């Protein structure tokens, strides 16, 4: 396993370099000029030109790229063009909210979706199965912002049970954190529940028809034991894959939920930085996301080995 980890870390270096080149190139090819945005709607051409020079945006692209890459190699991701704050500080400032939100959503998802999918598979073609599948289609089809606003309308505005917006760190105020997390995590979880329930169901259906399950039943195991101890672990690989990818997707793609519930997370930072053409922040974030995907894939591979010792790399 150590060899796997070492190999993956080594192979991530060229991956990150390729990501860096692509992100840098795409950003510079896309229309929009940070100096124009920074100067504002009423700025004169002279003011914009002076800003462009001040920000180093008038330098040839290869020089800009090499300067940035040299900084990254030493851990300096540069400063935000707009706020002049270090890129890494901005990312870490927003990371906690997104991580906490993503993890709580995944926990809710796994606790509800895996049993639902398993029951649907176990009661294949029954009304329970159809109900679970119908719910999962609905969960997948209704946009997160619709669910979010509906939850907010009832639980916050009408019944005044939960706060509308904001993020409270669980390290500072655990109770406040829970109150602020309930609505956004449920909103986010509903979409992923649909996905994971469906994957769990289809994966289990395949396993439940295999010989070892029949053998387990023949040996007199209870239905519950057959499902949870024999079938589910063997159906776990695709479920782990989807959960793993889901975590990575959540970290990089929670912008709608973050915007609806006004949570200052990575998703909002990304969208804001892209819209403002804040090049150093976008570049830093893309590298960070690439790192997250590499890391999550590694964790998924390790999880495969744990749940299925037959798997070798």
């Amino acid at each position, binding site marked *: 396993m150590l060899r796997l980890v070492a190999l993956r870390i080594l192979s991530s270096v060229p991956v990150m370099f390729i990501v860096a080149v692509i992100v840098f190139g795409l950003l510079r090819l896309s*229309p929009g000029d940070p100096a124009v945005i920074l100067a504002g709607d009423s700025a004169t051409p*002279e003011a914009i030109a002076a800003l462009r020079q001040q920000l180093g945006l008038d330098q040839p692209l290869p020089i800009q790229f090499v300067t940035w890459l040299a900084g990254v190699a030493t851990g300096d991701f540069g400063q935000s063009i*707009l*706020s002049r704050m270090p890129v890494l500080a901005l990312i870490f400032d927003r990371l906690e909210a997104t991580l906490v939100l993503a993890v709580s959503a995944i926990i809710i998802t796994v606790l509800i979706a895996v049993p639902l999918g398993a029951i649907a598979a176990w009661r294949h073609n029954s009304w329970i199965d159809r109900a679970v599948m119908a719910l999962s289609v609905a969960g997948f089809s209704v946009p997160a912002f619709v669910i979010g606003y509906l939850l*907010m309308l009832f639980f916050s505005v009408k019944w005044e049970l*939960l706060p509308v917006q904001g993020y409270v760190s669980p390290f500072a105020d655990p109770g406040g954190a829970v109150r602020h997390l309930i609505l956004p995590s449920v909103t986010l979880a509903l979409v992923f529940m649909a996905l994971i329930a469906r994957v769990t169901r289809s994966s289990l259906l395949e396993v439940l028809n295999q010989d070892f399950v029949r053998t387990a039943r023949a040996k007199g195991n209870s239905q519950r034991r057959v499902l949870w101890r024999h079938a589910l672990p063997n159906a776990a690989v695709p479920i782990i894959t989807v959960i793993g990818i889901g975590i990575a997707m959540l970290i990089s793609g929670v912008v709608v939920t973050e915007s609806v519930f006004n949570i200052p997370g990575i998703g909002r930072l990304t969208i804001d930085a892209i819209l403002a053409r804040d090049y150093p922040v976008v570049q830093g974030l893309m590298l960070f996301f690439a790192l997250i995907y590499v890391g999550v894939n590694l964790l998924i591979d390790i999880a495969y080995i744990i749940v299925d010792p037959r798997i070798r790399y």
Partner: protein
Amino acid sequence: MKMNRREAMLFSASAMLFAATSTRLAAQGAESVVRFAPHAALRVLDPVTTSAYVTRNHAYLVYDTLFAVDSNYAPQPQMVDSWEMSDDGLNWTFTLRDGLAFHDGAPVTAEDVIASIRRWWQVDVVGLRLQSVTEELTADDETSFSFRLSEPFGAMLEALARSSSIPLFVMPKRIADLDPSTMLEEVIGSGPYRFLAEEFRPGVSWSYIRNEDYVPRSEPADGLAGGKVPRVERIDTIWFPSPDTAISALQNNELDIIETVSPDRRIMLQGTDMQLVERASPTASTIRFNWSQPPFNDVRLRKAVQMVVSQLDYLDIGVGDPEAYQTCGALFGCGTPLETDAGYTDGSLENLEAAKELVAESDYDGETVIIITPGDVASFSALAPLTQQLLTELGIKSEIETMEWSSFLDRRSSTDPVAEGGWNVAHAVFDRIDLVSPLGNMNFDARGNEGYTGFVDDPETEELKTQYQREPDPEKQKAIAEEMQKRAYDQVFYIPLGTYHQYTALRPEVTDFVNAPVTVVYSLDKA
């Protein structure tokens, strides 16, 4: 510990009850704090580097100004105690009032003011004019400074009272000495609130605490003038990307004030006990033509469009609520000292045939014109389709290119031909405060490719502006402004599309809101 189902349900219910109670308690405990949702996220702290309104509004809390306009847009002293002009109008002397100090404890001196003026006048359009006639700007003593001019500058107080894009904020000399293109990172002013740099989260939240040493003027607050009395200890500003969430937060007592509620969202607060105030500076939309490229470098084609544009059509489609809008032909704003209808006639499709004749006379040769529009700004959404429809009626082929705001700004600043990434028609939206001054109104920037987008090239207007800046008599200034407006309509600098109101929403317990042309929250209190 194991819980049975009933205990678990009881525990959940208790947790919910606790949550609800503590949410309310938290809100009640925060009585000396005002929680404010601005119209945009603050990311740039330097009010000289950017003309963004959110940075300007932030600066009004932290910095003070030499003069400020009252609710009638008349300049009134703010940091200045007294001033005098020589008989020939070439020498102006100003003396600061007592008790002015920066947040770091240092007194505000004439040297600080001079450095601030020098930084400001390199970027502001009115400042540039003042700079061009200033031979000497000197400190006479600790609190007095003087201008020696090469020619009279009747608009001196108007310039020093610039209220928007870009106001003259006074900073310590060591900060103001920075080049304007170098963004300042230290926020030290002498205004009623101190910026809490350590709590600044760009694009998320930022806060201020009361400047206990601030000495407000004794006059009552009036517009941006008069006494700025900081009443609450702290102002917490929270950016809401979703306006609907902000409204819900206001209703749920998680916010005290929302700077901007659009006319169509106003209905969400009607019937509640929230206060809804019509903002003092309404919004004005415009159609702009690119003068630097054919076919709209031809005045006949611009006039043809002008003849068929009806403000009411745009307002009905773009705003919808007749209570929230008004037609307005005054290019310096309706309800302002320079309001006039000179040269204005609203267009209509009844003029279509005459307009088509003008199109036929023009140099338009059937090319497709490009209308650029930002797809992510709601106030622009209805403008481009309606303009395209009018162009079609006139027989002008057109295409709408939709992009997001940053690409739009970049593209709109281009003087290149359309084939090389240029544009022909765009729209722009202003707050009235940016229209009131003939020198500062960007729509009258007639310097061609060196000027504001649209690149209006009209030396006659620039000369009229010079006459205006020299003239000390307000009546004569008004006559010049009328001439400017006639010229702008005659040459079709742009087409105004009427004005509409936006609203500020406050919780019922919030008091002392000063409805100024720029949203300022330094005076707020909570009952």
